């Protein structure tokens, strides 16, 4: 079979599998897990656009996730907007705040940027916990489920298709961005900002642009999250979660969309598989972070590029 033919067949097979998953899975628990996977996938693909390409670690991605979630919830509850409107709007809200935050912070050196985003994330979480409008520490309840006409998406099985659809669109956009002039320039930032400026490229502008796109993804993920769980708690949008998303990116491969996808899936499903003892699992998780960042700088995808592993795959006749 020709390479391109084989790719097309593979794509079709994957597409079919994705579409019939809710029919194959019977348990609520697993379909909820898959939906959660999808949400983290969006967060991580978004994070890749700023952190994966330019190397600026955005530790506030989960704060923007929260901004999107609360924005969407409040737009629906207080203004009565349908989900189909509050979804893109919360993405835009997150993006606009992202641009505002990005403009001053992206001028800083990498470490200062990381600390700045940590501080911002913490302040945002503090606001979520203490403001009246966000429901305080108890969070936001009774967020309406999406509906079209009379059909209500109140089960995880139907909601799955909403998430799948959004993921499809956002991944295509991410792919287009990566293979455009912006993608190239962003990836070059890590190599030489000086050379980029000398080529007439306004590096600050494209950094802020990337940050805005990244927070847009976080906002969308937030909206999807809010209307799926119909209840959001400020504790979700924490520094710990921010580290988790960063780990998802790096375990896959920072700088690649497929890396982000793999990482988010692995790190959503793995913890569930290791559920036997929460405390021991968390200790292992801590060590896992050390191992991933230290010994797998190119993530699992990078591992497949390792010469020894390439030989192995070749021998299996898969290339």
């Amino acid at each position, binding site marked *: 079979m020709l390479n391109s033919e084989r790719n097309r067949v593979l794509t079709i097979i994957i597409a079919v599998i994705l579409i019939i998953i809710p029919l194959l899975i019977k348990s609520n628990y697993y379909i909820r897990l898959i939906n959660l996977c999808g949400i983290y996938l969006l967060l991580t693909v978004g994070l890749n656009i700023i952190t994966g390409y330019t190397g600026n670690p955005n530790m506030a991605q989960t704060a923007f996730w929260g901004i999107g979630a609360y924005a969407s919830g409040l737009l629906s509850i207080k203004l009565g907007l349908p989900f189909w409107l509050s979804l893109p709007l919360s993405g835009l809200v997150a993006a606009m705040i992202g641009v505002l935050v990005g403009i001053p912070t992206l001028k*800083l050196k990498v470490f200062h940027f990381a*600390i700045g985003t*940590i*501080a911002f994330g913490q302040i945002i979480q503090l606001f979520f916990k203490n403001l009246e409008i966000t429901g305080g520490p108890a969070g936001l309840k009774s967020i309406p489920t999406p509906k079209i006409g009379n059909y209500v998406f109140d089960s995880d099985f139907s909601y799955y298709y909403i998430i799948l659809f959004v993921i499809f669109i956002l991944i295509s956009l991410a792919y287009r961005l990566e293979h455009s002039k912006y993608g190239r320039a962003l990836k070059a930032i890590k190599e030489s900002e000086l050379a980029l*400026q000398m080529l007439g490229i306004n590096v600050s502008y494209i950094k802020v642009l990337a940050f805005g796109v990244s927070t847009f993804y976080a906002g969308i993920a937030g909206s999807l999250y809010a209307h799926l769980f119909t209840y959001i708690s400020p504790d979700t949008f924490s520094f710990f979660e921010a580290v988790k998303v960063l780990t998802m990116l790096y375990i896959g491969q920072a700088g690649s969309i497929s890396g982000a996808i793999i990482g988010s899936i692995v790190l959503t499903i793995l913890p569930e598989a290791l559920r036997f003892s929460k405390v021991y699992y968390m200790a292992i998780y801590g060590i*896992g*972070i050390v191992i991933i*960042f230290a010994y797998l700088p190119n993530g699992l995808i990078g591992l497949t590029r390792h010469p020894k592993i390439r030989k192995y795959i070749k021998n299996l006749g898969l290339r």
Partner: protein
Amino acid sequence: MVIQLLVNGLGMGCIYGLVALGLVFIWKGVRIVNFAQGDFAILAGYLLASFYIEWQIPYVISIFIICIILALVSVIFERLVYRPLKNVSSVTIAVCTVGVSIFLQNIFQIIWGGMFIPIPSIFGSYLIMVGDIVIRPEYPLIIVVTLFVIIFQQYFLYNTVQGKAMRAVEADRDVASLMGIDTAKVVSTTFAYSGVLTALAGIMLAPIFFLSTASGSLIRLKALAVLVMAGFASVPGAVVGGIILGLSEVFGASYISSEYKEAISFGIIIIILLFRPSGLFGSTVKKKV
């Protein structure tokens, strides 16, 4: 009332300063930020609970042992986490230290359980009374101890061979090793010293703060704020920054609001990063390219 707040603020400030000093020394030595430093301090607190309360070991001996243990822990940390990963970027190592922090917090949970452990004051219920102002004796003690640490440190760094070696390695590692200084040993000593500083901070913190598994995260973020104020590398900056933070928190909680007390540290970080990213004590370094 103001005097009370002043003393409390200074006291808390000294503790933040001590933890931040540990961070500054590590930064000057190996250019990394240790996100587990706060948990080291909490470890000292937990050890105090075990040694002093559970096993009834006399206070002074407990402190001594804990300082040694924390020094050892710091060096082990340096050998296991930092040394093998020297070629990886600093940010990556920093994230690794977050992993260590998570690991430690859960070890605390396993060993000491999840309940908050109260540590009784060594002063019993004795309180200092000045007129009608009530001051817990912990706070002045902290300030005195910190002063001693600073004096000792100044002497050590500027008047002893080992201290000068440490300063040489911080200034330029390659030149220092060319001059015959065993840089590896000096780096380990730096880590050990930062461990002792953190131990003292944790021990003094234990009676006046919540000792629970997640406290390390709170301390971490405050120490970060002080580190940013100190421009990462200023020793006096760490102490002064700590005091500024301590005073801001105490006065802020009292006059503004206590819920947003935590926001003070983060607010400070943001303001400094926006207007003086190289810290209050660094020279203004413009990020051009």
